[in-house]
């Protein structure tokens, strides 16, 4: 194992399951033998505010926060919340975005406009490395829109070919209640297929 630390920034809106996704990552990379650190803001962020989790893994990780401009991956669960963190990404970053809009208050009130063509803005800087996933639509087809986060995790897992699917699925079954295992394993598989093709 080299000394490189990999930085994954997860962003979304409270209630979208970004924190569960980061727990899955932690589970998987610990099982794979890495040191991990993960940091998030709780409290007021639970009330529909934006939520970010900094996730880092490597041989030895010191800081629980990713340095501004140093994220290797952005895994975003909502379009605007992806855009908000575009400056956090390295030039060679890989961007995975859930194709979902959740309108913030100023947009709901008609005071501001929701930014248009966010994937296009990302492609301008990260051409060829921007992946937009219809997570909610796919999860809804499987029977529950709540599983969109796991669809995204499935898609995201393609970037780590050294880690076997079994490890990801064990994280799902270890972290989730039994009655939703089947749904989430399916969601993971569907997500995995999207980026492969």
């Amino acid at each position, binding site marked *: 194992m080299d000394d490189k630390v990999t930085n994954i920034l997860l962003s979304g809106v409270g209630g979208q399951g970004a924190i569960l996704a980061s727990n899955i990552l932690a589970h998987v990379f610990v099982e794979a033998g890495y040191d991990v650190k993960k940091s998030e803001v709780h*409290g007021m962020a639970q009330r529909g505010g934006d939520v970010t989790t900094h996730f880092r893994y490597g041989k030895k990780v010191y800081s629980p926060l990713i340095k501004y401009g140093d994220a290797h991956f952005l895994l975003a669960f909502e379009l605007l919340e992806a855009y908000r963190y575009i400056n956090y990404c390295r030039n060679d970053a890989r961007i995975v975005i859930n194709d979902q809009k959740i309108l913030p208050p100023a947009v709901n009130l008609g005071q501001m406009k929701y930014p248009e063509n966010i994937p296009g803005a990302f492609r301008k800087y990260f051409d060829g490395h921007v992946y937009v996933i219809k997570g909610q639509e796919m999860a809804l087809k499987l029977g529950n829109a709540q599983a969109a986060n796991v669809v995204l995790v499935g898609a995201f897992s393609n970037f780590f070919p050294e880690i076997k699917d079994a490890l990801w699925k064990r994280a799902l079954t270890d972290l989730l209640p039994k009655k939703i295992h089947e749904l989430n394993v399916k969601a993971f598989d569907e997500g995995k297929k999207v980026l492969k093709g």
Partner: protein
Amino acid sequence: MKNVLQGNEAIARGAWEAGVTVAAAYPGTPSSEILAEIATYPEIYSEWSPNEKVALEVVAGAGYTGARAMACMKHVGMNVASDPFMTLSYTGVKGGVVVVVADDPYAHSSQNEQDSRNWARFAKVPMLEPGDAQECKDFTKIAFEISEKFDTPVLLKGTTRISHADSLVEEGPRKVPRTTLGLDPKDMPKMAMVPVNVRVRRKRIEERMRKLEAYADEFVYNKIELNDPKIGVIAAGAAYMFTKEVFPHYSYLKLGMIWPLPKKMIAEFFKKVKKVIIVEEMDPFLETEIKAMGYKIFHGKDVIPPMYELTPEIVERSLKGKTYKEPKVRVNPDDLPKRPPNLCAGCSHRGLFYALKKTGAFVFGDIGCYALPYAPPLQAVHANLCMGASVSLAYGAGKALGKEGLGKVCGVIGDSTFLHAGIPAVADTVYNKGYATTIICDNRTTGMTGLQEHPGTGFTIKGEPAHMIDYGELVRVLGVKHVRKVDPYRIKETTEVLKEEMARDEASVVITANGPCMLHRREKRKFEHPFYAIDGEGCRGCKACLELGCPAISWIEESGTTKDGKKRKGRSMINRLQCPGCGLCSQVCKFEAIVPGKA
């Protein structure tokens, strides 16, 4: 075996491994998870206390019997607990007593920023500062050893980036708790803090500090890491982690104990490295002390910001100065719509604050979710200060304003916050003949911090049934003659009651009824309709419903006409998935264009 634990979970684990048998806290971000986690260990008696002062006294009382006990709080909670804390330093302990205080630099979820290290110096007690979850667990255990060895309470400092950061922790077995517990009247000189004993104990504190200073030099978690001898950094906790990340080649004096300081080790470090930089979050605490020892430092607060949270890039930018290379800016985040926290769709506070806005009164708010209507569009909280202050601020303002202020001021406080610090203020309002109206928004839980039980919910931290305080009865006993209940989901009636009570030249209390937190699982209000919908042809686009600030209602710009031929620039829309059917919006619509939906 190693597990990924959150810093707070690791502190709880450390308490369990240390053989703690009593733990108490009042919830507060970023400390709340510690007691919630401790409550899962059946060997530990745990409780949500009504406030931090009581929590610490419960723990001190347990400690006097010889048991190991722990109290946990956020930084501002320590202000409340400071009264027992300052004198607990005098009495010392029998069983180990550890006080966890978690800071919130940048005020992610707080009414201020405070550097809790100052309490250690102020109360003359040792403080440990862990840097990751493993240290959270290890330091908690060591804190109990130190407490018993030196007859002192011990402070353990958390911050958002330690308490809410997860990393690997090696778990260990539980130490068998002491079984010979008891209270002994022979301990009176130690525990009865009357002046004659105080003066003796005061001397003991000085002796204790000298012993602790010597101990600090041997403390294994104060460590010198020699690398490049040109630059040496003195840091602790998260500040160490951030600096080590950006400048791994520097030499370090990593402090695990930040009070008292290891004087010999600091002297050795200054000898071994050419230039010393001190990196610390918030106050120049280490810097002031180290400078007072006579050392010259290369950098400290001259470049490191004295406020907000540190991050790796802030440390890098501060220390590199002009040579720092800014990362590429692709969009200005300030140009993007913000996403501030908001009251949930269906929240009972929304109806209350909409009604309050209608009264035109100046609203003194308090600490909790009901501070959120500060934001547009409601903008119905005009001031807030600290736990419980809403009541006394409104009362005090009324005393200054006299009759001029009648009908124009009120205090709004949550159920948990009222029990925390609001009761004496209501007593004062009655006793000293004030006229302020106190509005208790009873959502049946401690909402903002994540739904903790309190003495008004009828359940303990472990979910056992318990006595439930009746707020109406309670305030009547305090002497309030005018106590009204309102249904916050009925805007008109609520507005009328609020106006009547605020106009009264006597203390009054209004309590919201049947408005449990929308996130509450045990208590749910059943709304009449499953959801509401906009009658697309009837909506005139007047935006009145948007004034509620409900996350389920949004505005669509599209010019058109209503079914009765009125021109409009756009219309409202209700997101069916988010709408719980509370019906507030249908009450504010003047055109009957918001109608019950059918499941």
